[in-house]
């Protein structure tokens, strides 16, 4: 059953010098109880796609397309309606926990507030539930730590507080933007287990944004590789990870530090950097950094080709 249906999503940012195309025609659907992984370098438009779905883009952004949650187009919803939906039906774990947590309030109160607001819980019950949630995300001494301020927690603990907050209302769709990047492998494993159980047991749909291909590999049913605000490759995780049809996907995998490496071995970074949105070529966004790029790629939008169950937007795809 489709929970979320995003169609030709476009985001432009108005600047004094012109419009910057940030998200350029992203379409996907998300079924109940499944996980979509979103990967790509920083600046490729992952967070902006997520913020567009949450309707939390900066003032200067223009959005078009459709974002249907259970059939209701969120782009048509007014702010009152969005406030009801956000945190309740659709929630987000933000990339930078310190900006999303209020440094002046105790973490217990911050979690409880969501429950009081959306679930009509009494404060006492909400605090009990907050302690249960903290426990669930692996924070020991959860009861005592309800009264901690964010700065009294380690980076990884703050991240888990954010996750507890987002899960408070059991949303239908959870968008997690780099939720485990600050966590060590064992806590990562625990958070992954938690997210997975919410997907499996409660049918939550998850959009997982991460540059960690290992985390995506463990959790995602489908993967979307983004670059320059557009989808480079999309398919089942297995197909994308094993076929690696798009040169950009191949570049991401090649840059990973492998296990068992000798100290000092150089890593294969993708040459160059992500271009600014107004400096993208007319054709394929990856042109200029792509080892296979030809003139045709610079001037024409690449076709979407299916290879090994994966769909790649490229003139010369293939492993």
């Amino acid at each position, binding site marked *: 059953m489709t929970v979320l249906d995003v169609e030709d999503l476009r985001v432009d940012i108005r600047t004094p010098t012109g419009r910057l195309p940030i998200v350029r025609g992203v379409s996907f659907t998300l079924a109940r109880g499944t996980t979509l992984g979103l990967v790509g370098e920083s600046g490729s438009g992952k967070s902006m796609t997520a913020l567009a779905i949450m309707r939390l883009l900066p003032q200067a952004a223009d959005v078009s397309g459709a974002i249907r949650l259970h059939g209701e187009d969120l782009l048509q919803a007014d702010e009152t309606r969005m406030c009801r939906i956000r945190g309740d039906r659709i929630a987000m774990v933000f990339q930078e926990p310190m900006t999303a947590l209020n440094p002046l309030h105790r973490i217990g109160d911050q979690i409880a507030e969501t429950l009081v607001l959306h679930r009509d819980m009494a404060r006492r019950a909400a605090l009990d539930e907050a302690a249960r949630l903290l426990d669930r995300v692996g924070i020991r001494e959860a009861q005592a730590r309800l009264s901690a301020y964010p700065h009294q927690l*380690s980076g990884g603990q703050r991240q888990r507080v954010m996750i507890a907050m987002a899960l408070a209302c059991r949303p239908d769709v959870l968008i997690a933007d780099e939720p485990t990047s600050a966590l060590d492998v064992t806590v990562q494993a625990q958070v992954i287990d938690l997210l997975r159980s919410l997907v499996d047991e409660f049918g939550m749909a998850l959009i997982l944004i991460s540059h960690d291909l290992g985390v995506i*590999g463990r959790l995602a049913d489908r993967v979307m590789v983004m670059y320059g605000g557009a989808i480079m490759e999309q398919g089942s995780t*297995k197909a994308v990870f094993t076929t690696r049809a798009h040169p950009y996907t191949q570049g991401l995998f090649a*840059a990973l530090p492998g296990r068992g490496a000798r100290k000092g071995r150089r890593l294969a970074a993708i040459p160059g950097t992500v271009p600014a949105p107004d400096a993208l070529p007319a054709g394929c966004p990856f042109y200029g950094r792509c080892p296979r790029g030809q003139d045709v790629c610079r001037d024409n939008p690449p076709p979407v080709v299916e290879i090994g169950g994966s769909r790649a937007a490229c003139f010369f795809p293939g492993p």
Partner: protein
Amino acid sequence: MPAPPLVSVENLVRRYPLPAAPFGRRRHVAAVDGVNLTIAPGRSLGIVGESGSGKSTLARLVMALERPDAGTVRFRGTDLFALPPDELRRMRRGFQMVFQDPYGSLDPRQRVERIVAEPLDVAEPQLTRRERADRVAEMLAAVGLSADAATRYPHEFSGGQRQRIALARALITAPDLIVADEPVSALDVSVQAQVLNLLMDLQETRGVTYLFISHNLAVVEHVADDVAVMYRGRIVEQGPAAELFSAPAHPYTRALVEAVPDLSSFDGAGSHPPATDADADVEADSESGCPFAPRCPRARAVCRSERPRLREIAPGRAAACHFPGE
């Protein structure tokens, strides 16, 4: 004879109070609980361990940004916490820190030139403006940023570029030691590769010594000569990186190593690491017995009654376990 250590840490302890329960006695978290370590000049020591295990606290203590409750940190033989403030300030040019967060660690209101030059205010206040500008330009080039970066503000840069700025700032006093707390965790894989390559280049060309904290074992394997594994404020295993990762002696190290996904053998379902209960170091833990016992597949009766000390298990290797390497 081996060179004398650049850094040596002895019996270091740092406790933080837990938020008080209404009627309970005040309890503490021992974030760093009796840590000993040394780093030889030009080497890299990697610190790994779960969230809340005390890695960042250890880093702040080594940087003398915070005072320990007990123990010493020596830099080139000098006890940092025995120094008068002005001498400590002068000493600081020898060790600099790079943080995880490429957003928060740079002052957004300052131009890059000012940010990068700031450590010179204390270290070399006698420099002329011209000399300072030259040093900044030299550092920006060393970390692969163009010279015009100097006049721009941090928000105009991407995450990876900001981490380069932070490195340029850390390097400008030509420190012998750089303490890097999760320097690449916030970066995507391609930028991570660039920054790691840069760190390794700087070690080759300038002989920098690193205390390198990361939760990513593959990253540590690339940069570290030696590794210390922390668990609830203590070092539970220590040794040369290659040996420690290929044949972990402590069950906790082993759990860490096994939790790392192997992408080369991706099977669609995803490998599933053992879930462990996370987090750190609350004092209420019984003082007797091994702190890892509740999670340890090897635990036996003695593990619950006697706390294992960190001891040598092979030349250059140590583990705090009654049954190492089984």
